[in-house]
């Protein structure tokens, strides 16, 4: 293999699996270290820079970072990254001195952000400090979008939502609420310099053709609409037996909300098997923990009603069988269909982005799945003025993706407004490597591996929680638990950097490495090398770090897969050929606190 170029920003970035997995590339280890040092405000701002809504995300994020956490690969549970984010938010001090300054004198460019959800708000935050005049349009009476309408208060208290939403609004966003957008042409006519469409995926999927759907329509609700109605106080109760159809997080929110609004009995019925449900593990756990049964492998056949009065739903019994390609297929089991009583059905079987208000003749082209055709890098649509982000862009995702899109779109909009090329003028990614060696065996980070198991987040008393939709279920880590959990972080951003010409090939690093990551061997092709290492490197998603040829003609090969960054290789290295260096990635972004 060719020697690894550690100055390629992406090489070490991939080693920081959590950050790499985070759509917004939040520098997770860095903020966890700040938490460990009880520097909560700085930890919060580091988050705020990247993902804009640390308090909200600390409660609601889909956490793509956690399955990526290296701890998982050492046969443990991941660091509770998401909940640590909340620790930063809960314990932060006054952040005002850290906030970007918004110039009173504007730059003369006006941008319109359609929808006031997370994507638009993040774009607003990025552009405001550069002097843009930012207008937000939304059908709802307040900003927040799905964060406000689809996430129940027991998961995200309204104060937390409003604090972070208002922070941006107060930077000088001009809000146009209760504003029904029904024509993109009209919006374009308003002559903004650029447009950002962040209206999300507001249409819940329905089963219009299922027998009985129309007749019993009064007792059937679309999950997200129902949640929104609860959020705005239009719906305050639900009675009788409730069936929630669907296996995603919305379904989980629907059933748990139903419980709190007075349902006599709530059951979740899912078409697919339990393991393949879309809902996050922890959402499923919480649901089950609140005593709500989840019934799997039951696709609905029909709604059973008597004269429009819903009686229940008839379900087919299926099972998941792997076909010859190993793909799971639903096959009827032959058992008799199951009838389940219901007074109300909440359908949470998916969402679609839906922009019927965008005329199809104004230069914004859509593909066969009715998604806008976008440049993935710039998020620019076929109408150069119009940019997309969040769920409007590529279909339903989550808040953290919205933030990520927003940063990219904001750069594009800025370049567009300044008349620069959206691709070639984009600021580059970069990496800085800074040695962490402070003494003979002292490092600037807590290098010792903490074998502690993941700490459990305390919860509110269930009785109290189930009786009031506003009582937040999770209490979050207190300071002590937060500090302990923070110590579980492996500091994957502190990289093992190898300098060939210093190495005397004494094997000290090989011997000390607890994870058997390091091998000195003859060079070869990657597939060959992977099999010849001290421990076989079977995780192909993880790179091999290969040195230049050493004096003996061999190379150093390090499997980045399970390195716990304990620094012992560097500590035992007599010549400092190994060093622990913190990698700081420069991911281009506007309007962060550091600009």
């Amino acid at each position: 293999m060719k020697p690894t170029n550690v100055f390629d920003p992406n090489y070490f970035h991939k080693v920081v699996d959590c950050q790499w997995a985070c759509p917004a590339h939040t520098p997770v280890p860095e903020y966890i270290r700040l938490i460990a040092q009880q520097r909560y405000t700085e930890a919060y701002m580091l988050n705020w820079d990247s993902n804009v809504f640390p308090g909200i995300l600390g409660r609601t994020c889909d956490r793509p970072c956690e399955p990526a956490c290296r701890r998982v690969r050492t046969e443990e549970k991941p660091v509770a990254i998401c909940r640590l984010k909340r620790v930063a938010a809960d314990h932060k001090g006054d952040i005002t001195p850290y906030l970007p300054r918004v110039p009173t004198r504007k730059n003369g460019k006006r941008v319109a952000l359609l929808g006031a959800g997370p994507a638009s708000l993040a774009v607003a935050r990025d552009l405001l400090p550069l002097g843009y005049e930012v207008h937000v349009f939304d059908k709802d009476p307040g900003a927040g979008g799905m964060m406000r309408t689809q996430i129940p208060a027991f998961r995200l208290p309204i104060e937390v939502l409003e604090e972070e939403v208002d922070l941006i609004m107060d930077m000088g966003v001009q809000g146009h609420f209760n504003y029904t957008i029904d024509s993109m042409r009209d919006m374009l006519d308003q002559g903004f310099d650029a447009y950002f469409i962040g209206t999300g995926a507001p249409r819940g999927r329905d089963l219009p053709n299922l027998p009985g759907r129309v007749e019993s329509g009064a007792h059937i609700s679309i999950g997200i609409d129902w949640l929104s109605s609860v959020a705005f106080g239009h719906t305050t109760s639900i009675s009788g037996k409730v069936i929630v159809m669907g296996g995603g997080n919305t379904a989980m929110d629907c059933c748990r909300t139903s419980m709190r609004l007075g349902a006599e009995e709530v059951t979740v019925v899912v078409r697919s098997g339990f393991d393949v449900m879309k809902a996050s593990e922890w959402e499923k756990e919480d649901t089950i923990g609140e005593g709500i049964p989840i019934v799997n492998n039951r696709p609905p056949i029909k709604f059973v009603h008597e004269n429009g009065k819903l009686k229940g739903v008839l379900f087919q019994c299926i099972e998941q069988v792997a076909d010859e390609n190993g793909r799971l297929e639903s096959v009827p089991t032959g058992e008799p269909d199951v009838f389940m009583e219901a007074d109300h059905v909440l359908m949470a079987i998916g969402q679609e982005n839906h922009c019927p208000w965008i005329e199809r003749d104004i230069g914004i082209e859509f593909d066969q799945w009715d998604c806008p055709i976008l440049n993935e890098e710039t998020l620019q649509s076929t109408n150069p003025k119009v940019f997309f982000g969040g769920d409007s862009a590529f279909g339903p995702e989550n808040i953290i993706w919205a933030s990520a899109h927003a940063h990219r779109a904001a750069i594009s909009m800025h370049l567009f407004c300044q008349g620069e090329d959206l691709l070639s003028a984009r600021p580059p990614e970069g990496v800085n490597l800074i040695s962490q060696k402070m003494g003979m065996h002292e490092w600037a980070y807590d290098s010792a591996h903490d074998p502690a198991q993941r700490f459990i987040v305390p919860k509110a008393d269930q009785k109290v929680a189930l009786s009031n939709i506003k009582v937040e279920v999770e209490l979050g880590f207190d300071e002590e638990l937060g500090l302990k959990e923070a110590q579980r972080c492996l500091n994957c951003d502190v990289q093992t950097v190898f300098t060939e010409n210093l190495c005397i090939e004494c094997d000290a690093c090989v011997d000390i490495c607890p994870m058997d990551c390091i091998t000195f061997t003859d060079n070869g092709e990657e597939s060959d090398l992977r099999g010849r290492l001290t421990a076989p490197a079977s995780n192909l998603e993880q790179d091999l770090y290969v040195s230049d040829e050493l004096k003996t003609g061999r190379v150093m090969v390090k499997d980045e897969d399970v390195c716990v960054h304990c620094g012992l290789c560097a500590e035992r290295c007599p010549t400092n050929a190994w060093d622990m260096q913190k990698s700081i990635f420069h991911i281009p972004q506007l309007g962060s606190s550091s600009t």
Partner: protein
Amino acid sequence: MSFISKPVVHHPQLGHNDLGLTRRDYEGPISTLCAGCGHDSVSAAIVQACAELSIPPHRFAKVSGIGCSSKTPSYFLGNSHGLNSVHGRMPSVTTGANLANRSLHCIGISGDGDTASIGLGQFAHIVRRRVNMLYIVDNNGTYGLTKGQFSATNDKGSTNKKGLPNLHEPIDLVSMALQIGATFVARSFSGDKRQLVPLIRAGLLHEGFAFIDVVSPCVAFNNHAGSTKSYEYVRGHRDDVVMADFVPTHEEITADYAPGEREDVLMPDGSTLRLRKLEETYDPRDRTKALNYVHDKTLQGEVVTGLLYIDPDASDCHAMLNTVAEPLNSLGEAELCPGSEALDAINASFR
């Protein structure tokens, strides 16, 4: 040395031996030797070899003398008892330990100061006595703990850190062992576990006295240009004569060398020691030729490594002493005390 301890966490695919244990179960607390010390590599090789042999990690007795090398038994086989004795006397203590309980595997660790100077006498005599043990010398040619004086194995002309040459002839422990009648003699290099680990395994299974002289560079005082015990020098001047590949009892022996190149030696426990000759004319069963070969190569500045000599029919001191099979330390009053009746007869014999 390191400040933090080696984490317990290990590679998820770390292999298990026949006892269901991983190599990590054979480790000890973290070393306090200098970073890069060859001795730590020897310890790591011991750990690996013991794990591969599937001997329970508490069934070893580790004994050492004094010096850097002699500290190492506390850094491997943490579940085994160790005894860090006095300078140069590891052989006698190990002899006693082996006499007391022949069922434990004795590993003696010594250094070139410990063995080739103060302990030269005990070294010679434990060879003669054929104590069933593995005797490893971590040989770095220098006194590390006292900061870099020449040791007795330092080659004549090899320089110290200040550039001053050693004026004295070296003591070659391998030649000595061969001469006095050791039945398993090897030399290896701390920087080559592929060679060292099988040698350790074979040495542990050898019935009788097994000696491995391991050139183990001292990074602090003897790893400079001019030293003949540096990583670079040894790598550049190695002459590997016989690779020993160890094949455990239950593994099928597959012929992966051309006939004539290899030779299988049956070990006492039924396992096989496969010898692969890298030097065609070399015969590891011919003591005299081995001695001559080592001598000639040494004159040429070469470091001969590998399994230099083996007598597969060797026996140990328990056989010579004709002791019972049970460990002596397991015998109780019933087996040991002749009783009052016998004593009356003894009294009578003194009248």
